C-alpha cells in the first residue's frame, strides 16, 4: 500500500498519465495497425477471425517472386546512387550560397521552391519532358542525336533520380546552410593564419563540424529516396519498365490484388532494412560525437 502511494507520487507515473491521451492516439493509429500488419505477414489470410499462423511461408513466397527481387534491387540501386549524388550536389550548393553572391536570396528561394509544390501538379511537366515524343527527345533530335525512350528503358531510373534531386535539393541545402553557419568563423581565420589552403580548410574544418548535420541529412535523404515511388508512379503508372519498379510499386500492386500477406511481409522486410540502416547511422553518429568530445 505504502509502496503504491510512493509510486503514485513518482514523476514517471505522473508523466504517464499526462502522456496517455497522445499515447492512446498513437497506439490506435500507428502502433496497433503496425503490430497487426506484422502479425498478418505470418498468417494465411483466410479472413477475419479465421487466419492461422503459417510461419515464414509468406516470406518464402515473397522471396521467390522475381518481381519482388527486382523491386528490392531497384530500390537499393536508387538509394545507393541517388543519396550520395543528392548530398554532394546540395552540399556544393550550400557552400556556394553561403558566401556573398549576386542574387543570393533569390537563388536560395528558387531552389527551395520545388519543396512546396505538390508532386502531382508538376508531374505532367516532367512527363512532357521525358516522353518518347517529349521535350528532351526534341532537343536530342535538334542536336542530331538518336532519341531515347527515357521512361521505357534503363534510363527511367535516371529520370526519376533527376526528379528526386530536384525535389529534395532545396531542403538539404537549408539544413547544410544552417550547419555551415553554426561553424565559428574564427576557426577559418585561425586556419588561414596558420597557412591552410581552401581544400584543407574544407576537409579539416567544414566537413568535420558539419558531420552531425550530415548524418541527419543522410538519414532524411535515404528515407525520402524510399518515397520516390510517388514520382515513379505518377510518371509511369503501376507497371512501369522493370528498372523503375520500386518496392512500393510491388506493395501497391499487392494491395490492389488484395494479397495482404505478401504486402505485409514486404512491408515488414522493408521496415527491418530501414531499421537496421537507421541504427547503424545513429550508432556511427554517437561514436563520432564521443570522439569529438
Amino acid at each position, binding site marked *: 500500500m505504502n509502496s503504491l502511494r510512493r509510486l503514485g507520487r513518482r514523476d514517471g507515473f505522473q508523466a504517464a498519465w499526462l502522456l496517455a491521451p497522445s499515447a492512446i492516439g498513437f497506439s490506435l493509429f500507428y502502433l496497433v495497425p503496425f503490430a497487426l500488419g506484422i502479425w498478418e505477414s505470418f498468417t494465411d489470410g*483466410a*479472413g477475419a477471425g479465421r487466419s492461422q499462423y503459417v510461419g515464414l511461408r509468406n516470406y518464402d513466397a515473397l522471396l521467390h517472386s522475381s518481381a519482388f527481387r527486382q523491386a528490392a534491387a531497384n530500390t537499393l540501386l536508387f538509394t545507393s546512387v541517388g543519396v550520395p549524388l543528392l548530398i554532394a550536389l546540395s552540399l556544393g550548393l550550400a557552400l556556394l550560397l553561403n558566401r556573398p553572391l549576386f542574387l543570393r536570396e533569390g537563388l536560395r528561394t528558387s531552389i527551395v521552391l520545388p519543396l512546396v509544390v505538390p508532386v502531382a501538379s508538376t508531374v505532367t511537366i516532367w512527363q512532357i519532358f521525358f516522353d518518347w515524343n517529349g521535350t528532351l527527345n526534341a532537343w536530342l533530335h535538334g542536336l542530331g542525336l538518336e532519341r531515347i525512350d527515357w521512361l521505357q528503358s534503363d534510363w527511367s531510373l535516371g529520370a526519376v533520380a533527376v526528379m528526386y534531386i530536384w525535389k529534395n535539393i532545396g531542403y538539404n541545402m537549408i539544413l547544410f546552410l544552417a550547419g555551415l553557419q553554426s561553424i565559428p568563423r574564427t576557426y577559418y581565420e585561425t586556419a588561414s593564419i596558420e597557412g591552410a589552403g581552401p581544400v584543407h580548410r574544407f576537409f579539416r574544418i567544414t566537413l568535420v563540424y558539419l558531420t552531425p548535420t550530415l548524418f541527419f541529412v543522410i538519414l532524411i535523404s535515404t528515407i525520402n529516396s524510399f518515397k520516390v515511388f510517388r514520382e515513379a508512379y505518377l510518371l509511369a503508372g503501376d507497371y512501369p519498365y522493370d528498372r523503375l519498379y520500386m518496392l512500393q510499386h510491388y506493395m501497391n500492386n499487392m494491395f490492389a490484388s488484395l494479397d495482404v500477406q505478401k504486402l505485409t511481409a514486404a512491408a515488414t522486410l522493408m521496415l527491418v532494412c530501414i531499421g537496421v540502416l537507421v541504427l547503424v547511422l545513429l550508432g556511427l553518429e554517437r561514436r563520432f560525437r564521443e570522439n569529438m568530445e
Partner: protein
Amino acid sequence: MKITVWIGLAVLLLLSACSGPGNPGAPTAKTDTKHEAGTGGPASAPSSAPGTANGADDSLFDDVDADEPVKLVVATYYVSEQVQAVVEAYEALHPNVEIELHAASTSGKDLNDVMNKRDQFIQTNNAALLAGGGPDVIELDELPFEQYVKRGLLVDMNGLIEHDSAFDKADYFTNIIEHAQSGDGGLYGMPMYFSLVGLFGDADAIARAGVAIDDANWTLPQFIEIAKQLQETGDYPSVLASEPSYLLRQLITEHYTQLVTESDGNAHFDAEAFAEMMRQVRTMFDEGLLYNVVSNDRASALSAQAGRGRGVNAYFSDTYLYSLQDAIRFAGYPNTKLYAKPHAAGEDSGGYYSAVGTLGINAHSPHPRAAWEFVKFLLDDESVQSYINDHLESSPGFPLNKHVYEQQKQQLMQDGVVKQRGADALEIDRALLEQVDAQLSGASHIVRGPSKLEEIVDSQLEAFFSDQKSAEEAAAIIGNRINLLLNE
C-alpha cells in the same frame, strides 16, 4: 514506469483484438458462431476457403425465418439506377427487409473526378470485404472479381440455387449462367444483363464472292485465309473494319497460353512471338485486308456505329449489341448477317458475350439467404428487368431472364419498327433478329474488359504503328513490363 506502459499497450492490443471488424450491427457476432458451428470450428475453415459456401451450407440456409428483421447493404456501380428503382418495390413486398443502397456515382465534373470516384468505390469495397464486412450484395463489374473468388470472399450461388425450389435455371439464359461459373465450378457472380459481341457481315457480298463460311468453328488463321479469298474476288476493298491495336489486344488474349510460358515457377512472356504477331497485323492493314476505321475516316466509323451510315467499306465490322433494337439500328449492310467472332485455336463453338451488372453475395454476409432473395428479385420478370425499356433510354443489355427477353422480342415483332430519335423509324429485319436470337442462347465465351495486360500492350502500339519503334523494340518493352506483372 516501463511496466505501466507495457500493461497499457497490452490492454490496447486486447481491446483492438476484441472489437473485430464487420458491420456495426449486432447480427455479426451471431452468424460468426453459426459459421463455426456449421464448419466444425474455425480450424477447418481455412482449408476450404475458396468454397466457403460449400463448407458452410447449413449456416447459409438456417435463417429462413421470414419475419426476422433483416438489413441488407447493396453496393452497385453501373446498375445503380436500375437497382434504385427496384429497392422500394422490394421493401414494400418484404416489410421485414430494409435495404441500404450504396450507389457509386459514375458521373462527375470531369474524367478525373469520375476515375477518383471509381477508385474510391473499389478501394472501399476491397478493404471492407477483406476485413470481413462490406455490403451483402455487390455488383462486381468494376471490382477485382477473380481476386475475391480466390480469397473466398463470395458465396457460391450454386449452393443457394440447389436449395431454392422457386428458382428454375430454365427461366434464364442457362448458357450465360453456366459460363459465369469460375474454374472450380462455383457460381460467384450472377450477371443481370449481357451483351452480344460479334461480327456483322454483308451476306450478299459474301455469297457473290462464293466463299463458304462456317462461323461456328472458324479460327483466326482461317478467318485470315477467308479474308484473302474475299479480297481477291469480291466487291469490297477490305474485309474487316477494325483498329490495329484493338485487334492485337484481342490476339494477345486469345493466344495467351502460347505467348506466356512458365519455367521453374517464373512466367515468361515471349516477346519475339509477339513481335511477329505485331508484324502480321501490320501487314494485314498495309495490304488493305483490314480497314482501319480510326485512321481512315473517323466520321464514317462513328456514323456506322450510330447505325445511320449504310456504307461500311468492308465485308465485316465489329459489333456490340445490347438489345434487339441495337441489332436493327447498327446493321450497316443491305443484307446484314450476324457472325460469331473467330475463335482461338481449341475453343468450342459458340459466340462471345460480355456480362453487365454481375452481382455477388458477400461470403461474410450475415444474411446470405436474404441477399439471394434480393438478387433473385432483381432477376425476376416483374422487377427491374421488365420495365427497363420503358423507363430508361437505353437498355443496359439483354436481360438474363428469358421471359423478359421473349416479351421484349414479341413486342418488337408486333411493332415491326424501331424508333429512332431525330430520324425515321427503321423496319425490322426478322431474319437478323432470328440470328441474334440463336446467338444469344448459344453464346459461351465471356469477353472481359481491358485488363492490365492489354493496357500495357496498348501503351507501346502507337509508337510501333507510327514507325517510331520497330516491332522488336516495342515487343521487348511490352514483354519487360508484362513479365513484372506475371511474376509478382
